[in-house]
């Protein structure tokens, strides 16, 4: 079932003193996210990720287009009871403690007071804030506020969680915990939609990603498909510190690390290279096809500006 369906979202702002100039923040965007998947919304800063998320959350109104979440309109309170949202660099009522804030948001989400108390404790534990639950938020560090933000987003056990740059402001351990939490949400059957410009996070977590640049969707597809495109090259690694003379004649670069040598050759040269290594009695360690990383794909999409959808894509 489709969890999120964006149907031609478009956003144009009027700028300038007389508001006569038009600035396009988002060109018509069509996107579908299926239930139970982790979907990464990738793009450099200013690409339109946050604008899209804000429109999905009903904070900013689209100039054109619409969207449905779990088949419901964006202003439907029943839909809002089933989503959680972590904004980028979240701020909260700093006169409240973490516990009070969660209890407040729990009340707004319709959580009964009795079960709500237990759920608040459980959520604080889950994001690693049990020790600071009764400290006012004005005394929290940026990383702790991020955890509070995650806590309020998952407190009411929503079906879909939206995270805007969830790793922002977190130390390496915190980032790992958030990655684990997102993976756990997926195991619990939740849908996770998150924006990021940290590609390693997206590559390790996402089932599918969309790439957006200058307000335009540049590519969308399953991470496995995007990163499995063989470039027609193989990486060969062998034991030793020298390369066969025949391979040197190909003009390829050799990287010597300790007692291993690594080089990249074309698939046409692969058999000849292995034969040369065998002849020179150099021990072959591995031959691995070179795959396109998500970063390669990302960079190519930003440069080409051409929309591309891969197999299995819902858009």
């Amino acid at each position, binding site marked *: 079932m489709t969890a999120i369906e964006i149907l031609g979202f478009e956003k144009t702002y009027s700028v300038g003193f007389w508001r006569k100039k038009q600035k396009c923040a988002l060109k018509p965007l069509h996107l579908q996210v299926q239930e139970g998947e982790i979907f990464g919304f990738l793009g450099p800063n200013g690409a339109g990720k946050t604008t899209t998320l804000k429109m999905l*959350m009903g904070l900013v109104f689209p100039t054109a287009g619409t969207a449905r979440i779990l088949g419901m309109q964006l202003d439907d309170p029943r839909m809002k009871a089933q989503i959680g949202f972590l904004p980028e660099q979240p701020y909260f009522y700093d006169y409240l403690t973490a516990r009070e804030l969660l209890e407040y948001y729990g009340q707004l989400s319709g959580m009964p007071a009795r079960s709500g108390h237990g759920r608040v404790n459980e959520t604080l534990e889950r994001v690693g804030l049990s020790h600071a639950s009764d400290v006012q938020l004005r005394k929290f560090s940026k990383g702790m506020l991020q955890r509070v933000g995650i806590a309020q987003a998952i407190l009411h056990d929503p079906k879909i969680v939206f995270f805007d740059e969830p790793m922002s402001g977190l130390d390496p351990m915190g980032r790992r915990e958030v990655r684990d939490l997102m993976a756990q949400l997926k195991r619990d059957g939740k849908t996770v939609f998150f924006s990021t410009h940290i590609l390693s996070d997206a590559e390790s977590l996402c089932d599918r990603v969309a790439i957006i640049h200058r307000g335009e969707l540049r590519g969308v597809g399953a991470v496995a498909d995007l990163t499995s495109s063989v470039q027609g090259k193989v990486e060969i690694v062998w034991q030793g510190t020298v390369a066969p003379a025949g391979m040197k004649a190909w003009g390829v670069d050799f990287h010597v690390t300790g007692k291993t040598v690594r080089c990249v050759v074309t698939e046409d040269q692969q058999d000849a290279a292995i034969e040369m290594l065998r002849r020179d009695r150099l021990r072959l360690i591995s031959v691995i096809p070179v795959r396109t990383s998500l970063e390669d794909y990302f960079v190519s999409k930003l440069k080409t500006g051409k929309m591309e959808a891969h197999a299995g894509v819902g858009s």
Partner: protein
Amino acid sequence: MNSNPMNFRIAHIATNTFREAVRDHVLYNLIAFALLMSGAAILVGQISFGIERLVVINLGLASVSLFGTVIAIFIGIGLVSKEIDKRTLYTMLTHPVRRWEFIVGKFVGLSGTLVVNTFFMAIGVFAALLYVSRHFQKADVWVLVALYFIILQFLIITALALLFSSFSSPLLSAVFAFSLFIIGSFSEDLRGFAAMTNGLARWITTGAAYLVPNFSALNVISSVAHQQPVAGHLILYNTAYALLYTTMAISGAVLIFERRNLK
């Protein structure tokens, strides 16, 4: 997840607004008020003869009005804009809360704060009154009516501050709200002036006189201090007027806020 009735959500938002005011030490103004009333009662008892009650009621009610107006404007203008600037609205409105519920909840919360504040100030006024005259008089009941009118005035000012806060910066909102408060305090004079003009000027001044809040009608401090009773129809008229004006201002704030992009 249980469904949460709309009136519960408004109550939760109102309670949190009240809690914010308390934790931001807004009620500390009561200390200044208590000091003012104590000082006035002692001083008046020493320097005046026969007019102690008049002075205490005038000074007390005027202070209640001034302190509350300042709180209503300075907190009211930040009710929406501060939430947008601090981005606390982003998480609030992604919970099952409608925008109009947020506005109404904020209004109820600040109004509640002002009512509590006024309640404690009223105790101060009556304590000072008891101190200077040693006993209460039957006419003192009209002081309660004057306090009720002051609360009605706070409702209008809070609603106006909220209205301005929904579309302009805190500074401009403060300027607008204070200006309306001052003009509204002289609205009877404005109506009198309108009656003296002719033609287009008459239309414009009459329109302006009826558009600004009529705080003159809500101000019975002087007559109450002179132990004059307040007419029953005035209580009814002022109540209806304040509720209507407040509803219109809140409706305006809701209409604007419903369409506002939270960048």
